Structure formats: structure tokens, C-alpha cells
């Protein structure tokens, strides 16, 4: 056990100087600041900041769970929205669609499942279900890599979308097809939104700690070895199959949990929420932050979400000042374009990601360290 924990502890505390590493202090202060965010809501009765940080945290879990699978192990998954959808629809089905009687043309149809699962257990179940799907996808996809894996995962996501859009609505009258809210009216997980914020924050911190430790442990080193050279790792008598399937399951588990929280925070879930562009948005967050570094993709998701939000605010302010309504509409049209433009620009001009590049430059200039290698 001590041998297992040694590299993890070393990533938090410098073993030579016995001091906590400076980057961990930054993270600690950052999370301390995040715990203070609800004060804003209590003081001003405005919910925008809490909502923004809540959504960002959920997306950050998506990003770090993608990163452990694709950035670390090199199994590029283009269908991460599939696991998100599994979590989200699990919550949607077992809180509304299957447990409540539906009314169609005046006649009441009985509920399909007559159990009421408490929210916390439901979230855990959706995580495990997503992990199970991760196993189902991970085992057959062991042979595949690169474009072949990309095609397989995109197709998985599309199959799930088709299933949700065409087959699921036939199951129960409450579920609607071709709508932006196919299952609506989800109950809130806890009574107050501030408590929900804290729950999501704690889950985010736990996920970050777990995945960061996972990547810095001996398991993580094996994952890196698989990415660099899989035959070489096999030659070192490493059972790469086990590690690849495990990391698929771990990644899917966290994505499923975050998907369940996404459904709770939206109050509804639909096929439109889990389309292919969600998968690409998750990838864009990791790439902007720096692929293959858990903290980088965490920072990248915060960077992108807050950048987009502040541009929205600037557009609103400008339209308030100038009196032209067109600016906000203009921005709304272009919001997604920024996502996809950012990913292209960063990949072409800064392939290590913005945050990683900045950290590497800092390290090179002040600490005389070599930059880490990516891709």
C-alpha cells in the first residue's frame, strides 16, 4: 500500500523539501474561492454566478474523465457524450418517465416501474451503468486505435441518439421524440440550489483528486507507457488489456455521474443535449487546457466556459449601451463557432494547449525545467 501511495504523495508533496508543491497551493486557494461563491447569491439574490460555476464544474468532470482515457492512454474517444447520455437518461427514466403514470388523451397509463430510488443512489447507479457500457465498448475496441476507434465511438454515440430519439418514445407516453426536452419535469435532487451547488463542488473535487491520483500512480505510468508504445509495454510483461479496459470503465463512470448531475441541473434531458457536438466540445476543453494533463483539462474547461460567458456579458453590455438588439443575437449565433474555432486555432498554433504552454514557459524560464511532451 505504501509503495502504491508513494508516487501519488510525491505528486502533492515534494519529497526532497517536504513541502507542498506550489501548484497544489494554487488549486487549494482556487477551491476555497469556489466555496465562497454562494455568498454572492445570498447577498444579491442573483443566481447567474452559481449557475455558471455549477455548469462549469459538470463540464470539468466531463473533460477530466475524457482526458484520463484519451489524453493519458491515447484511446481517443469521440463519443464521450454517449456515457453522459447514459447517466442523464438513467436519471430521467427512473425519476420521471418510468415511475410516474402518464396521461394520454385523458386515459391514465400505469407506471412501468413502481419504485422510487433515492437520488444519491440513482446517481451512483448511473455511474456504474455507464461503467458497464464502458466495459461493453472498451473490450471490443481494444484492437482499434486512431481513426478506427474514432469511427467506432462516433457510431456508438449516434446509435444511442437514434435509440433515444426513435425507440425510447415508444416505451412510455411521457417520453417525447424530436423535442428539445424529451423527458421533462425532473425533480430537484435537494431542496435548495445552494446545497446542490456544494454537492456538485464536492463531487468535482473528489473526481479531480481521484483521477489526478490515478494518473500519478503506478497505474498512470502504465497508461502513459501504453500511449507511447504499446508493444513495448507488452514486452515489459504489462497486461495492457486489463489497463485499457479499466481506464475505459473509470472514464465512463465519472462521465455517467456527471451526466446524471447534468440532467438534475437542467431539469430535463433529451437527445438534443447529447448530440455529437457535445463530445467535440468536451475534446475542445481538453485541447485548450492541454491534453494529457488532468489539471490542464480542468483549467481548460474553466477557461473556455468563463471566456464564453464573459463574451456573452460583453455583448449584452454593448447592446445595452448602444441600444442595438442585434449584438446579442449575433453573439448567440456565434457562440458555438468560438468553441470550434478555439479548438482549431489551439491545435494549429499551440498544440500543447494554452495552460500547459504557459506553465511550460514558466518552468523553462524560472525553474530551468524541460517541457513535457504531449500527443
Amino acid at each position, binding site marked *: 500500500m505504501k509503495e502504491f501511495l508513494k508516487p501519488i504523495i510525491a505528486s502533492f508533496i515534494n519529497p526532497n523539501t517536504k513541502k507542498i508543491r506550489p501548484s497544489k497551493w494554487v488549486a487549494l486557494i482556487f477551491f476555497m474561492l469556489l466555496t465562497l461563491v454562494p455568498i454572492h447569491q445570498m447577498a444579491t439574490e442573483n443566481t447567474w454566478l452559481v449557475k455558471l460555476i455549477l455548469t462549469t464544474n459538470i463540464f470539468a468532470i466531463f473533460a477530466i474523465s475524457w482526458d484520463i482515457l484519451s489524453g493519458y492512454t491515447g484511446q*481517443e474517444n*469521440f463519443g464521450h457524450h454517449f456515457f453522459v447520455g447514459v447517466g442523464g437518461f438513467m436519471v430521467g427514466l427512473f425519476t420521471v418517465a418510468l415511475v410516474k403514470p402518464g396521461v394520454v388523451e385523458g386515459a391514465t397509463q400505469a407506471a412501468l416501474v413502481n419504485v422510487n430510488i433515492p437520488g444519491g443512489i440513482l446517481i451512483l447507479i448511473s455511474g456504474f451503468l455507464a461503467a458497464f457500457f464502458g466495459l461493453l465498448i472498451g473490450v*471490443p475496441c481494444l*484492437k*482499434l*486505435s*486512431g*481513426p*478506427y476507434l*474514432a*469511427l*467506432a465511438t*462516433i*457510431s*456508438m454515440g*449516434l*446509435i444511442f441518439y*437514434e*435509440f433515444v430519439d*426513435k*425507440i425510447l418514445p415508444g416505451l412510455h407516453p411521457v417520453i417525447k421524440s424530436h423535442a428539445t426536452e424529451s423527458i421533462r419535469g425532473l425533480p430537484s435532487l435537494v431542496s435548495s440550489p445552494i446545497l446542490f451547488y456544494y454537492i456538485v463542488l464536492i463531487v468535482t473535487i473528489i473526481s479531480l483528486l481521484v483521477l489526478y491520483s490515478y494518473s500519478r500512480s503506478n497505474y498512470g505510468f502504465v497508461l502513459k507507457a501504453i500511449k507511447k508504445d504499446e508493444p513495448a509495454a507488452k514486452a515489459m510483461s504489462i497486461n495492457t488489456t486489463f489497463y485499457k479496459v479499466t481506464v475505459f470503465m473509470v472514464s465512463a463512470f465519472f462521465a455517467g455521474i456527471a451526466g446524471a448531475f447534468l440532467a438534475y441541473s437542467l431539469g430535463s434531458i433529451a437527445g438534443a443535449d447529447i448530440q*455529437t*457536438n457535445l463530445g*467535440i466540445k468536451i*475534446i*475542445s476543453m481538453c*485541447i485548450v487546457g492541454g491534453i494529457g494533463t488532468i489539471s490542464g483539462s480542468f483549467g481548460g474547461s474553466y477557461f473556455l466556459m468563463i471566456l464564453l460567458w464573459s463574451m456573452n456579458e460583453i455583448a449584452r453590455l454593448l447592446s445595452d449601451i448602444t441600444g442595438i438588439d*442585434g449584438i446579442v*443575437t*449575433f453573439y448567440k*449565433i*456565434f457562440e*458555438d*463557432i468560438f*468553441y*470550434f*474555432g478555439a*479548438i*482549431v486555432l489551439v*491545435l*494549429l*498554433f499551440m*498544440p500543447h494547449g494554452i495552460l500547459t504552454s504557459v506553465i511550460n514557459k514558466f518552468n523553462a524560464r524560472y525553474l530551468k525545467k524541460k517541457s513535457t511532451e504531449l*500527443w
Partner: protein
Amino acid sequence: MEQIMKKKYPKMKIACLILALLVAGVSLFAAVPAAEAEGGFSGLTRFMGMIQTTLVYGVFYALLALGFALIFGAARVVNLYHGTFYMLGAYLFATFARPSQFNFPFSAFLFFQIVIVAGMIYTGYKKFSEKESKNKPVFTKLRFPVVMLIFAEVPLLLLFLRVDLPIAGNLNLFISLIFTCGLIGLLSMLLNKAAIQPVKKESVAVLIVTIALAFFTERLIDAIYGSSNVPVPSFIETSTVQLIFDATIDSKRLLMFFVGIFLIAGVWLLMNKTKTGKGVLAVAQDSEAATLMGINTQFVFNFAIMLSAILAAAAGIFTTPFLGDASPAIWLGVVIKAFAVVILGGLGSIFGSVLAAFILAFVEKFTKFYISSSLEEIVFLVIIIIILLIRPQGLFGKKGRF
């Protein structure tokens, strides 16, 4: 011809035979109970309907996959932007050819707009990647192209701000076709130069860049044209053409079928009879050996991507009139289908993908006509995954380099 077939595609004949037997056997087997159930000719009509739909869609998928396989084979690059060429082809063609109530030559304006934007982006990219100015700050390097871009783009910005100006060119259909193909060709060269070549070493980075650019273009088209669909004019009036056994076919589909066959034959001739095409095939076999034999690989990449983009645009122009109007999101299904067909055909086997296109079209349309039309897409996607798991190198391909 037979010797060439034997030499280059030794399994082609066997595969053709298997396909023909499969189609004939399975469909006849399925046609009998359908005929019994509905009585008389309806089963046969349904069968004929399936066959003609299979043929039309087979040509359609072949046209898409041929281009995709060209880049996949020659440059070892998976270009997920391929579907966007299809979408853009339909949109640009509709833009140039739609009738407008103004005599204002909007299409010429649009044409020059796009050329200016492409040129400025290219200049900016060139300036950015210059070696001697590496130490200059970014904004100094990009000042000229950015200022020019802003000047050129003020009219387009006005368009984006919901000015109700009908985007229509009122041009002759053939001139529109030439304009569209030219623009798409330029765009594909630009894509190759600016986005694919810098990250070409990493196959996954190419995937991410191209799919992100495809989503980018989707949103851009959404912003310019609005989310409502755009009708694409057709070269031919809608009418039904009588075939044998009471079967009829839409004239637009028939046009698509013949144009597609013509284009595929043209590409086959280009690949096998001209020096350029032979160069592409040589690079597809072994790019290093081809370089040693004096083939300009860079030119071959450019040529392959241009040809593939123009084929996709042609498919967009001729299929959207009967598939429904052009909408910004159609590219994803198209690119997935092209990718699947190429995987089934096999890496490095460019004309194997033509056969694979017919096989997949048959499977899809068989599901539609005899099982359920809502299962069509799911069956197609499930087949992709089964192919990937059982035989990732495809029917006619060798073990790939990926």
C-alpha cells in the same frame, strides 16, 4: 480490361459474384413472402423499388466514398471535413442558382468575397509560419491580413446582422455548377494547406481539427442562411419514368444515377490511364517509394483532396434535390457513411470502396423496405461497428498503417 482487373484487384471478380448472388438470393427469398402477403404484383413492385433505391444510393455512397478513399489512401489522412464539402456544395449551388427578384449580381460579389477571405486567411497563415519573423510578436505578423479581412468583411457582417437580403445569384445552372466546383476545389486546397498539413503527423489531431472545422462550418452556414432549409434547384423537372414490371423511378434519381456512373467511370479512367492518376495510386501504395520514383507527393495530396472535394460537392448538388432540402447538419451522416464504406472497402483499395458502397446501400435499403424504415440508420451504424470489430482492414485491403 480483364487483365487489369485480374492484376490489380484479384479478389474483385469473386467479390462481384458474391455480391450479385447475395442480392439476387436474399431479395428473391424476401420477395416471395411479401408477394404472398400483399397479393399479386405488389411484392414485385416493392422488390423493384428496393433494387432501384439500392442502385441510386449505391452510386451516391460510391461517389462519396471514392473521394474519401482517395485521401485516405494517398495521404493516410482521415478527412472528416468531407461531408462538409457535400453540404457546402449543395448550399453554394443553391446560392448561385436560386432565382432572385434583383438584378444585382450578388453571386459575383459572394464569389469575390469568398476568394478574398480565403486569400487573406492564407496570407495570414503564410506570414505566421514564416521562419525569419519567428521572434516578432503575433500581432505585428498578422496586422496586414487582419486589417484587410476586416475591410473585406464589413458587407458580410451586415448580412450576419439579419439584413433581409435574399442570398440568391440568379445564375444559369451550369455556370453555378462550375462556380461551385471551383470554389470547393479552392477551399479544399486551403484546408489541406492550412489545417491538415501542419498536423499531418498525428492522425488523431487531423481527426479533431477536421471535425471541429466541420462543426465550425455548420454553425457558420447556420448563421448565414438561418436554420431553415434551403431548396436546391435541380437540372431536371420532377417526373416519373416508367421502368419494367410496373416500377417507376423519380427522374431526379435517374439523373443522379447516370451522373454518378459517369463520374465514377471518369475517375476510374483518370486513375488508370493518366500519369497523374497513376501517381496517386503509386502514392497510395507506398508514398516513400513514390517519392524516390520522382512523384511530387505534395502535388498528389493537393490533387487528391481537390478531386475528392469536387466529387463530394457534385454528390451534394445532384442528391439534395430528391433527398430533401439542404440543411446545415446533413454533413455528419454523410461523412459517417463515407467513412464506413471506405473501411468496408479496405484501406489502400480505392475501387474496393465502390463495391462496398453497393453492399452497404443494399443492406440499408433492404432494412428499409422489408423490416422497418425507422431501423435504417441503426442497422447501418451497427454494421459499421461489426465490420470494425471483425475485419478492420476491410474486404479488399491489407493491414493498415494506423
